[in-house]
């Protein structure tokens, strides 16, 4: 069975979880440039967290681990979301410049806020569900930069500790949604490899609650 493992922020804790579930991930902790690792009982395929839904949906990986933030942003992917693994906690926030009322003024006088984000769907859905209109500005890199130089009135971004915001003189205005790592499965694999997937789910559930 192939498990898609997210590199980046979730990598370390994902390996810890797999260790706790009885798999040996020592090989992945080295500085190997390989992307695929065969360990007893599993094939681990490492990739960017945002690629995990793509690989799992197509069946190139049977199961995977990625953040709920990624799943929400790619909510049209057909996946089975089997477990909340509890780690990798972060939150989406609406932030704006500290002590600046630009956001509120734009909303009041222009009827519309300009929001910079790299998560357009989350942002759009949030403002729609709260009955407010926005002009969406999609940026890829450091979103914090945008309002500092006048691109947008506020930002929607993932916040882990809040330090990046603070250092850029931004403050949280609204908390949108909290996210943790999730265990997902391919739709066909979930049916045809039922016993294996149920067993792995049980192991991960137990390890994540420890």
């Amino acid at each position, binding site marked *: 069975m192939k498990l898609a493992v997210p590199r980046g922020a979730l990598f370390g804790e994902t390996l810890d979880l797999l260790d706790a579930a009885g798999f040996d991930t020592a090989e992945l902790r080295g500085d190997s440039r390989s992307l695929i690792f065969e360990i007893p009982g599993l094939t681990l395929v490492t990739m960017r967290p945002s690629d995990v839904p793509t690989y799992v949906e197509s069946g190139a990986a049977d199961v995977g681990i990625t953040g709920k933030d990624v799943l929400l942003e790619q909510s049209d992917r057909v996946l089975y979301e089997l477990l*909340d693994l509890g780690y990798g906690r972060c939150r989406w926030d609406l932030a704006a410049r500290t002590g600046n009322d630009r956001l509120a003024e734009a909303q009041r006088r222009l009827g519309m806020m300009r929001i910079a984000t790299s998560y357009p769907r989350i942002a759009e859905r949030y403002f729609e569900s709260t009955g407010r209109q926005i002009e969406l500005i999609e940026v890829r890199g450091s979103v914090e930069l945008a309002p500092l130089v006048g691109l947008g009135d506020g930002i929607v971004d993932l916040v882990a500790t809040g330090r990046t915001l603070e250092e850029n003189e931004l403050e949280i205005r609204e908390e949108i949604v909290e996210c943790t790592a999730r265990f997902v499965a391919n*739709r066909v694999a979930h*049916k045809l490899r*039922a016993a294996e997937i149920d067993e792995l789910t049980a192991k991960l559930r137990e390890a994540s609650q420890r």
Partner: protein
Amino acid sequence: MIHPIPPGTRDVLPDEMRELRKLQLALIEVFEARGYGEVATPAIEYDEVMSRGDGRTARSSYRFFDESGELLALRSDMTVPIARLVASRFASGEPPYRLCYLASTYRVVRPQRGQMRELLQAGVELIGASPAEGTVEVIEVLEAALDVAGLDRAVIGLGDADLYRQLLEELGVEAEARDSVLASLATHDLVGLEQKLLEAGIGAEQASTCVQLTQLRGGSEVLERARGLGGAAVERAISRIGETYEELERRGAAGRVQIDLGLLRDLGYYSGAILEVYDPAVGHVLGGGGRYDGLMKRFGLDLSAAGFALYLERVHTAQMEESRRGRGES
């Protein structure tokens, strides 16, 4: 010079067409041999006809006006046009009616996802047979179709469309809470499902039972385990599934059928048994179907009905993957 075609459509060139045609002919031959006569319907219907199937989910994505201002729709599935055909052409006939088709249907696509806007389907509809026998017969035809396509490893998932509607009713989950629970079910978000059940005021134990129920899939032992999870709605669903499964076993046709209490189809007209087709070589569903006992009534003919459709391009992909596997390649 390159002249583009719309995303999600494609041209078929001779090498592929030869294989596709062979598959199509083999399938139609299987259907005809079992008494299913082939029909064709127009690719465009009145929008009112397509919406009658299911206003929300089966509604066509492509609608336009004709020269006299009528709203037309490009068909999004074949079951609804065939229900319309039977109601208008066979109103005074002798049911059951056995019909099959080979037709393109049209769906919206999400950009850059490799999805097809134009989808070739082959399938059957059995209209007016008794529910228990009808389901079994349709599954047998589907098995014969998979056999002739050479997909020996393909599996048919058998579930029940009414299970969760009835279960939620029994648990007293209604209105908005019910819709949001069903939405989590439909997207297979088990984390969200448990959360929403708790929000709807269901006890933690019952919520976890509900989530466990969606994970039950396998042979007849699944029914026993479901029975252990309890409730009248569960009991009703497993007796319906059990009846079908036992009949399949008696006929020696249960081998590739997997009972699946987590199965859901996104088309709103299904009731009772629902089917889905998988092959281990491809990550996508190859087809599906089930009972749609209420649909004919919406066209003024009170007949029970069942059918299935196979997505031919995906079946063809599975054929190629399976033959590569047979040659020991990957």
